[in-house]
């Protein structure tokens, strides 16, 4: 019964927090409206999201977010340096093909988003069976090193957290 009413508990929780932040106060009326939204929205959108993501270690997800945020800040300076000072002819762009070990769609989209936000790499496409990512690297003299870095630094962690 509870499972039927809240098909996505994490989504419901996110919606409550989001609504409270959006309205910017925490009176009883806002809380009730947030509760109504958190019940209705997952129910109405259920048919587009049949599965339920499994998060084995919610704390691990927080640690992962911290790592990604740190990488984003550090590597943004590298991209800024490339844009500002590297002559256009010397930038070695490359396509990188990354076969995935992850299977759940949520984990794969999380990995794809991470790759795009980490500067220097950008998820450009995925294969039609959804098991291989096509990545464009802004400046990668050694494309294989980029692939290995993605697999060890991000994918292994995500696999531990989500699957």
């Amino acid at each position, binding site marked *: 019964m509870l499972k039927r009413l809240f098909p996505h508990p994490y989504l419901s929780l996110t919606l409550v927090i*989001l609504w409270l*932040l*959006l309205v*910017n106060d925490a009176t009883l009326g806002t809380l009730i409206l947030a509760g109504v939204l958190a019940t209705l929205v997952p129910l109405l959108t259920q048919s587009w999201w049949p599965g339920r993501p499994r998060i084995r270690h919610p704390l691990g997800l927080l640690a992962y977010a911290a790592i990604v945020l740190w990488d*984003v*800040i550090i590597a*943004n300076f590298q*991209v*800024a340096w490339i*844009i*500002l000072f590297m002559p*256009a002819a010397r*930038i070695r*762009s490359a*396509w990188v*093909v990354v*076969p995935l070990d992850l299977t759940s769609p949520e984990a794969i989209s999380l990995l*794809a*988003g991470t790759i*795009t*936000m980490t*500067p*220097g790499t*950008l*998820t*450009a*496409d*995925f*294969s*039609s*069976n*959804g*098991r*291989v990512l*096509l990545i*464009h690297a*802004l400046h990668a003299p050694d494309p294989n090193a980029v692939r290995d870095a993605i697999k060890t630094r991000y994918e292994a962690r995500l696999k531990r957290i989500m699957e």
Partner: protein
Amino acid sequence: MTALAEYAIAALLILGGLFGLIGSFGLLKLRDPMQRLHAPTKATTIGVGAALIAAALDMVLLGQGITWQSVLVAAFLFLTAPLSALFLAKTHLLRTIARKDLPKTGTGGDWATFRAKPQK
């Protein structure tokens, strides 16, 4: 304490402005269409994110209470930037990149962009 916070906010603002400018400059400078995708999706997002966080901190400092909306906007931009980048990249693949320049998938199938349209 207040002086320290002011320095932090000022640093965030300057950093944000610089990254926003670098992102837009990269859009003009880089030559390859795929390279141009890199600059705005990252540098600009980081720049705007820094500016938004600085705005939220400054509101606290001015004693107006924290306005969560700018934090929300920053989070929203951070979450949507990869998606718009993915869609733009797929459009590039379809319209401007030669098929022979792309690597193979290694699975036998093609990349998802070139999949046939669903039958109506």
